[in-house]
């Protein structure tokens, strides 16, 4: 069906431009911009990862061996900023760019020039932010949350604030583009409730982005004026309130957390049905669960602030609201398991990562539930228990989903199969070492080790050493990933079929592999039985 459409004659723009600069820097093609996003994200993943290696090396044993405490704080701060805004978010935008038009039968994104701009802002934003490491006074060291008054002591504040503004502009433009594409550019017959779950998850995520990125911009702008223009938004001596910043920041920050996990839910909801050869269990429930998690994300922000001395009523409200999130999240996990139940499963690398996602993300969800209980949180808060929690949801959650999606669609992007053997080597190394890395951090937190400290009492030595060993090996394992991707892109001889995976359903598998430069110039004719969700009953 759609296959024929891609071979239509259409004068003018057929292949990609041959000039490197024209092709990559001036691109308005969703596939090329998607590739740029993904490559950028991978680069940031390794830069942020190298900061993590410094952190784990210093924490390898008690005593200060490698870096000064201030530099350690720069590392924790920049590790978070780079991984969140540089690695995870651009990876999702890249996957969305590449796949959303292919999944809904659109020829490109709705706003292709803005697409180019929203990507090309990012390298400048990160160059600006990372340049602070080489400036006198050093980089930001007050944590990625930039709580005042501490953040106001940083000399590089203006650089970071401007970089965050740029990232915010990029994210907002990306989100507008995705919403415009999904709402306007679906092929005839691709009803909203026939869209892949990944497209749904991005639609909802895009609304979250538009809602909260301006809030972050406002918060950091107030930091800027507090430091340089004599305002007192967050200065108690001038009638302000340091806690106000935390409320504003987390009103952005909690939806931000879900911005980094909802697309991952979507990805896993694509991958598991493919390799279970069985449609997703409870499609509408999955979509509704994502929407309700997104809604709840706006009314739980103060659970990051249980120790700031909130009034009793606020603590109770935010505790109950937070606990509610466990219900839709539980539904999603149960639905993934039910999708597997009664299927006919094979375990290629994308499926392995997706299964690891379900198990390990759920462990992160469990510790999240524990953290919601305020009296227990009085102990957990700002301890390594929290560090373990959010790395389970972000690394074995978001990052594992991104890796799974990369293996899943890499043959479609490149036209070649990756090495299944090395993919599995990468998987087993990742899944083992990531647990060696993060699981002991639960124990450290429970025993009383605060987060963001460069040195610790001898009692914490054993688990820190185990964690560091896991960290180094997990980091090294990602070089295998790099190798597999490079091999697949440039050297693999094994041609990929159009429908790469036996159980794969959806429009993206109806175009050739590699996906041609232009696809769906004529909208495809939709046949419900070829869609993953063509027959939604309940």
């Amino acid at each position, binding site marked *: 069906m759609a296959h024929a459409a891609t071979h239509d004659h259409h004068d003018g723009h057929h292949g990609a431009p041959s000039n490197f600069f024209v092709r990559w820097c001036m691109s308005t093609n969703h596939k090329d911009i998607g590739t740029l996003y993904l490559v950028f994200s991978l680069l940031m993943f390794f830069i942020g990862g190298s900061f993590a290696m410094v952190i784990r090396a210093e924490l390898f044993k008690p005593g200060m061996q490698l870096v000064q405490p201030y530099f350690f704080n720069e590392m924790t701060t920049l590790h978070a900023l780079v991984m969140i805004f540089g690695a995870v978010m651009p990876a999702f935008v890249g996957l969305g760019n590449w796949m959303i038009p292919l999944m809904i039968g659109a020829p490109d994104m709705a706003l292709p020039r803005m697409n180019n701009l929203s990507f090309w802002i990012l390298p400048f934003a990160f160059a600006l932010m990372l340049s602070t490491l080489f400036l006198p006074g050093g980089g930001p*060291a007050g944590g990625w949350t930039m709580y005042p008054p501490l953040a106001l002591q940083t000399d590089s504040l203006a650089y970071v604030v401007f970089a965050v503004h740029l990232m915010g502009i990029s994210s907002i433009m990306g989100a507008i583009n995705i919403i415009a594409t999904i709402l306007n550019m679906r092929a005839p017959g691709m009803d909203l409730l026939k869209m892949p779950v990944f497209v749904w998850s991005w639609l909802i995520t895009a609304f979250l982005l538009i809602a909260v990125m301006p809030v972050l911009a406002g918060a950091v702008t107030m930091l800027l004026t507090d430091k340089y223009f004599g305002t007192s938004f967050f200065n108690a001596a001038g009638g302000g309130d*340091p806690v106000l910043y935390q409320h504003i920041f987390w009103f952005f920050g909690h939806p931000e957390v879900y911005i980094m996990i909802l697309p991952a839910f979507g990805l896993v909801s694509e991958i598991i049905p493919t390799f279970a050869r069985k449609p997703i269990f409870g499609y509408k429930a999955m979509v509704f669960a994502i929407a309700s998690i997104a809604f709840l994300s706006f009314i739980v922000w103060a659970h990051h602030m249980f120790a700031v001395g909130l009034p009793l009523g606020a603590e109770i409200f935010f505790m109950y609201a937070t606990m509610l999130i466990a219900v839709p999240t539980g539904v999603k996990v*149960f639905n993934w*398991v039910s999708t*597997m139940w009664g299927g006919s499963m094979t375990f290629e690398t994308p499926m392995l990562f997706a299964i690891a996602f379900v198990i390990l993300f759920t462990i992160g969800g469990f510790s999240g539930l524990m953290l919601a209980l305020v009296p227990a949180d009085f102990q957990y808060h*700002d301890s390594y228990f929290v560090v373990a929690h959010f790395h389970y949801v972000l690394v074995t959650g978001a990052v594992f989903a991104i890796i799974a999606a990369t293996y899943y669609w890499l043959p479609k992007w490149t036209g070649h199969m990756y090495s299944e053997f090395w993919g599995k080597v990468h998987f087993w190394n990742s899944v083992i070492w990531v647990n060696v890395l993060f699981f002991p951090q639960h124990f450290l937190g429970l025993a009383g080790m605060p987060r963001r400290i460069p040195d610790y009492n001898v009692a914490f030595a054993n688990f820190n050493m185990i964690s560091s060993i896991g960290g180094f090996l997990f980091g090294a394992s990602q070089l295998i990933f790099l190798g597999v991707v490079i091999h697949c892109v440039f050297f693999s001889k094994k041609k990929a079929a159009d429908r790469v995976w036996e159980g794969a359903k959806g429009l993206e598998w109806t175009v050739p592999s590699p996906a041609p430069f232009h696809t769906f110039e004529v909208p495809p004719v939709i046949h419900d039985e070829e869609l993953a969700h063509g027959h939604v009953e309940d």
Partner: protein
Amino acid sequence: MTSGGIRIKAWAAAVCALFAGAAWANPRPGQLNMTRGVTEWSYRPYLLNNVALGVCVAIGILVFGAMFIAMFRFRKSRGAVAEKWTHNTMLEIVWTTIPVLILIVLAYMATGGLTTFADTTGAQMTVKVTGYQWKWRYDYVDYQGKPVEHVGFMSRLDALSDETRELRSGLDPKAVQENGENTYLLNVDHPLVVPVGVKIRFVITAGDVIHSWWVPQLGWKMDAIPGIVNAAWTNIKEPGVYRGQCAELCGQDHGFMPIVVKAVPKAEFEQWLAAQQKPAAAPAPAAAGSAAAPATAQVPAAPAHQG
């Protein structure tokens, strides 16, 4: 990295920590679970932690168990043929309702813990805690209804830890010990001395940036925020030395401003307090070195050091 004997000791400590949280006052090598704490209230987070963990483990066994059974039974290589169903209304109602019921139980327990913690009334003693970069100040405000005058001091990282923690100091953190207990980064020059069996109200604030006052044995932490005064309370049941750390990133030496609470019997505390209140105590060198310390700062007499 350690000899077998030490490893066995570590595991023994871990087992003790796991099953008898109160047996150890401070973090132990290999400690796996939260401490039970030593106060009237501190068992609440501990109990809540254990119950929530138990619930999570039980759900985990069910869910992951189902996954592993599915992965084993429904493999293509075993000839499994995919079924077509995608709904089961009964099942979906059940797995939405049961979690809600579990959450209600947890919420009930947590709310009880919260309301008791929020009640700072009826305290017989008040201590003001102020966080500075990078030390704590303790001021005794009142005791048994009577105001306490001029008892307050700075509490900072002990000299031995401070020397050892310098970059490439060449000193061994394991050698920083007190009474056979490793106190590296968990010891101070002047601990906060408090009586046992007395409801103590803490009023907590900060002088520069946000800090957080956390002693795990007391069961809570509370942020110290410039311009805001937070309140919390404790009632310690057992005499002992309880160690904690600043829990909110506060700059380069955030990791180096520990908290030590020395809980002593009432009579001993009253003696100590009386000794502190004696006028004309010469300004001690420790306090003189601190620019942030108000002029009235006094340091406790030597016997107040834990020993």
